[in-house]
């Protein structure tokens, strides 16, 4: 019966073994000892049965049965226990079954996806079903041997830079510098062979990861690896296609464009898709040696590189290979003027050569995180090889264009030189043409002056510079420069002190280069042409030769034009002098005629009445008195007229003398007021004076100032009607006195005002005619004011009145009385009333 149980179990076990495949192998193993024991017991029992029939005793049989029963029971217990164990093992086995299914699912998604990023994203999501994490990172190896962060899931750190190189830290393959700061305590890293990279998981739970988890990750990675490889292959081929496209594009530009800038723009644009860089430049060696020139640079000043900079390319020339590095570049450009060098910045320099002839270099600069490895070098070299012929071509075209431009300039200058007669027009054409083909921020043309150490600037362009404008005179080149000129026609200075004929002000306008060529014979040039530039290396010998050619071309024309201009100038001067003389002559004739008329009338009256008196000796005293009065009046008039004429003659000959003394203006005004009383009374006119109460001391010629005011008051009296008011006011303004004389007379028309200050002008109207006078008073008054350093002005409205004002400098303080000067002024005041300071010899000499 227990056998039946055992066999049933066995059958069940075997059945389940068959049904459950390998999973039930555990049950088989568990039941096997039990079955073996049962079989052994049965064999023993059969053997013992044979023995019992021989002895016929039941005791041993009972004993044996008991033993057998016990063994059987033990076997049954063992089997039961084993089956329990097997059942438990089965549960465990079915869990790992689920896990395997999940792992398979992770692999499935990756196999047909071509986008690495998407593969990583799905993976990071799926993997949470088997392993928990707080941060997952994927890194790949780069061509420069460093690791690059490709993907981050979960917690992100500040130092994470997707696509950036990982700053390697021991034990931190994901570049996380301080995991504990983020609360991450566990970490495991599994390699991904397909991308030559790693996956790193981190968890907040301490001890979260052990060998089982590592095992699972390995399986998981194995699952997704084929997909990743596939995607990488796809990306690489795509990159290659882009590379082809870019090179084709560059090739097209190289064949179609002849302009360097355009070619380099296409290169820069096409490369931008293929590699990470932010600045690209091209440096050209000069065809005839010397330093190389930066011709294209995407950011001015980076690494000290600017377009037009001169650099030493010897490094590239010697190695003729690719140079790359970090921080300071081999050209040594970062030393002066450039930005501070970023130690992490990458640079690469690829030679640009055509048929083993070095043209220059392509220089690339990239931020510290970028890659400038072998692949990039290879790509740049291919680009360089492709554009080199085009660049050579463009260089040749540029040279050819320059030559054509130079020919055109020479032709234009030649045309101007042969057709223009004016120096300025020839030089203008020269300046325009030179500016179009040579570096030039300032152009100066000068002409020598015979017998002078100076040259005159006849044409200048560029920034204004006081002291060197057109018409200014600047020193000729020094002896040393002359000696330099003896050997050549030209002086060339680059980035040095600009010498000699260039005023120091050039430095203020920032001119650093200078080239000057003499016009004509070196020993005796007729002038100089000079060009200046802010570029310290603007000029070379080819410029000098060109300028010398131009100088030779224009010199004969300039000489010719100069002669012509001098002749014109001379003729003009003669014409002008002639006209002046004629005008002066006419004026003199008019003056003489007027003067003689004015002089003869009173003379006629005087002599006529004297004759009458002599003839009529018996006439009464009363009649004689009338006649004498007429004679005296006319004699006075004749005297003042002669004084006026003398004054005018002196003014004309600049011989009118001013003898300043210090006097009180207030007193002078009082004196004049008294002197005019009688004259004013004759027309019932009233003089109103306004003078400050404070004493005004003035240092001036008292008699001349008196004459000045007298002339103005007489005019006011003459041209005002009966009973009119005349105002005389004096004011102090700083160190000047200002005097105003206002009348209500007939005024002066605007037309007449224009010629008021010419000698012997007298407004043509009846009152003026009747008033008499010479018309010289105003001219004399103005001259006196001006001789004192003051001025005189007149404002008049016809039929309303005239205001004449003048001011005189010389306000001073009360003088210490000097008896000698006092006596002298007394002597002067006692001079002849008619001719107070007549000096005929004086006039005769100066007039």
């Amino acid at each position, binding site marked *: 019966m227990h056998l039946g149980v055992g066999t049933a179990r066995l059958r069940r076990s075997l059945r389940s073994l068959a049904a459950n495949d390998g999973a039930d192998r555990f049950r088989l193993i568990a039941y096997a000892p039990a079955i073996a024991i049962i079989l052994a017991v049965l064999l023993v029992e059969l053997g013992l049965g044979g023995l019992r029939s021989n002895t016929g005793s039941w005791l041993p049989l009972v004993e044996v049965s008991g033993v057998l029963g016990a063994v059987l029971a033990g076997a049954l217990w063992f089997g039961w226990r084993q089956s329990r164990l097997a059942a438990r093992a089965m549960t465990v086995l079915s869990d790992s079954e689920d896990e395997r299914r999940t792992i398979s699912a992770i692999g499935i998604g990756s196999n047909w996806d071509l986008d690495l990023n998407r593969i990583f994203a799905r993976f990071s999501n799926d993997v949470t079903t088997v392993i928990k994490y707080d941060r997952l990172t994927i890194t790949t190896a780069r061509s420069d041997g460093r690791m690059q962060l490709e993907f981050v899931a979960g917690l992100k750190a500040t130092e994470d830079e997707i696509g950036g190189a990982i700053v390697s830290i021991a034990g931190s393959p994901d570049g996380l510098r301080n995991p504990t700061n983020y609360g991450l305590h566990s970490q495991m890293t599994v390699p991904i062979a397909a991308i030559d990279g790693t996956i790193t998981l981190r968890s907040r739970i301490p001890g979260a990861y052990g060998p089982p988890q590592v095992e699972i990750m390995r399986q998981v990675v194995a699952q997704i690896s084929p997909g990743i490889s596939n995607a990488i292959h796809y990306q690489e081929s795509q990159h290659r296609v882009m590379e082809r496209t870019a090179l084709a594009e560059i090739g097209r530009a190289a064949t179609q464009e002849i302009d360097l800038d355009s070619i380099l723009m296409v290169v820069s644009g096409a490369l931008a898709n293929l590699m990470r860089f932010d600045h690209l430049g091209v440096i050209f060696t000069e065809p005839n040696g010397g330093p190389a020139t930066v011709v294209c640079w995407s950011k001015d000043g980076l690494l000290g590189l600017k377009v037009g900079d001169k650099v030493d390319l010897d490094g590239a020339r010697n190695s003729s290979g690719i140079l790359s590095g970090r921080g300071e570049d081999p050209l040594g450009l970062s030393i002066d003027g450039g930005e501070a060098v970023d130690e992490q910045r990458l640079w690469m320099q690829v030679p640009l050569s055509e048929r083993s002839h070095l043209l220059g270099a392509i220089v690339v600069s990239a931020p510290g995180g970028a890659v400038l490895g072998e692949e990039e070098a290879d790509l740049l070299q291919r680009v360089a090889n492709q554009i080199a012929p085009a660049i050579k071509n463009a260089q040749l075209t540029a040279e050819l264009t320059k030559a054509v431009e130079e020919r055109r300039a020479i032709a234009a200058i030649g045309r101007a030189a042969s057709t223009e007669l004016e120096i300025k027009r020839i030089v203008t054409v020269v300046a325009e043409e030179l500016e179009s083909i040579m570096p030039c921020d300032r152009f100066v043309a000068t002409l020598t002056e015979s017998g002078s150490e100076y040259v005159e600037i006849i044409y200048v362009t560029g920034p204004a510079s006081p002291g060197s404008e057109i018409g200014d005179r600047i020193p000729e080149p020094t002896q040393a420069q002359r000696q330099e000129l003896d050997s050549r026609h030209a002086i060339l200075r680059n980035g040095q002190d600009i010498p000699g004929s260039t005023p120091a002000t050039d430095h203020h306008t920032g001119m650093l280069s200078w080239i000057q060529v003499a016009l004509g014979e070196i020993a005796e040039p007729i002038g100089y042409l000079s060009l200046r530039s802010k570029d310290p290396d603007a000029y070379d010998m080819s410029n000098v030769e060109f300028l010398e050619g131009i100088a030779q071309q224009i010199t004969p024309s300039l000489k010719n034009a100069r002669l012509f201009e001098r002749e014109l100038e001379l003729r003009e001067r003669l014409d002008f002098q002639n006209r002046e003389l004629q005008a002066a002559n006419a004026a003199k004739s008019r003056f003489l005629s007027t003067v003689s008329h004015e002089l003869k009338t009173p003379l006629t009256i005087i002599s006529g009445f004297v004759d*009458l008196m002599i*003839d009529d000796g018996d006439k009464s005293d009363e009649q004689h008195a009338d006649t004498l009065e007429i004679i005296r009046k006319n004699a006075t008039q004749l005297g003042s007229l002669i004084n006026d004429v003398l004054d005018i003659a002196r003014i004309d000959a600049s011989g009118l003398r001013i003898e300043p003394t210090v006097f009180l203006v207030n007193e002078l005004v009082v004196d004049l007021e008294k002197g005019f009383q009688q004259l004013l009374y004759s027309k019932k006119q009233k003089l109103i004076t306004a003078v400050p109460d404070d004493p005004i001391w003035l240092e001036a010629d008292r008699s001349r100032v008196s004459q000045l005011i007298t002339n103005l008051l007489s005019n006011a009296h003459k041209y005002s009607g009966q009973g009119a008011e005349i105002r005389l006011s004096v004011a102090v303004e700083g160190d000047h006195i200002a005097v105003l004389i206002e009348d209500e007379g007939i005024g002066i028309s605007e037309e007449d005002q224009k010629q008021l200050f010419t000698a012997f002008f007298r407004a043509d109207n*009846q009152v003026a005619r009747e008033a008499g006078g010479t018309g010289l008073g105003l001219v004399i008054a103005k001259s006196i004011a001006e001789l004192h350093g003051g001025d005189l002005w007149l404002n008049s409205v016809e039929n309303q009145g005239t205001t004449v004002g003048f001011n005189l400098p010389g306000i001073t303080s009360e003088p210490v009385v000097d008896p000698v000067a006092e006596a002298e002024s007394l002597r002067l005041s006692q001079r002849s009333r008619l001719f107070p300071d007549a000096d005929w010899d004086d006039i005769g000499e100066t007039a």
Partner: protein
Amino acid sequence: MNKILIVDDSPDIRLLLGRTLKAAGYGVSEATDGDEVLPAALSFEPDMILLDVSMTRVDGFKALAMLKADPRTKGIPVLMVTAKGHPTDLETARSLGALDYINKPWAHGEVELRVQWALTSVERQRQRETQIKAERRAS
């Protein structure tokens, strides 16, 4: 007694000439400017006019032209008085019909002599003309 018209804008000159000529026995009248000449000549009917050249309103040449343009006054002999004495002025005066000129300043007795001579020559001219007319009539 011959009558003389003095034309000058200077009152002193008029006074001087007036007294000189009165003393020589002429009848005198005055005009103060060129524009007064013609009316004065018509009303005063002088035997001779002394005409100043430089006058304010109408100068002597214009006044002379006016006199010579009027048939009633064109026969009156005119002596110009001038301080200018420029040859062209004299030429102008003569071409306009002035008989003679007196330059300022004149010598002692010059005015009387020139006036007398002028009057005499005009008188002679008249006599000769009358004589010629008479002879023509006779023949």
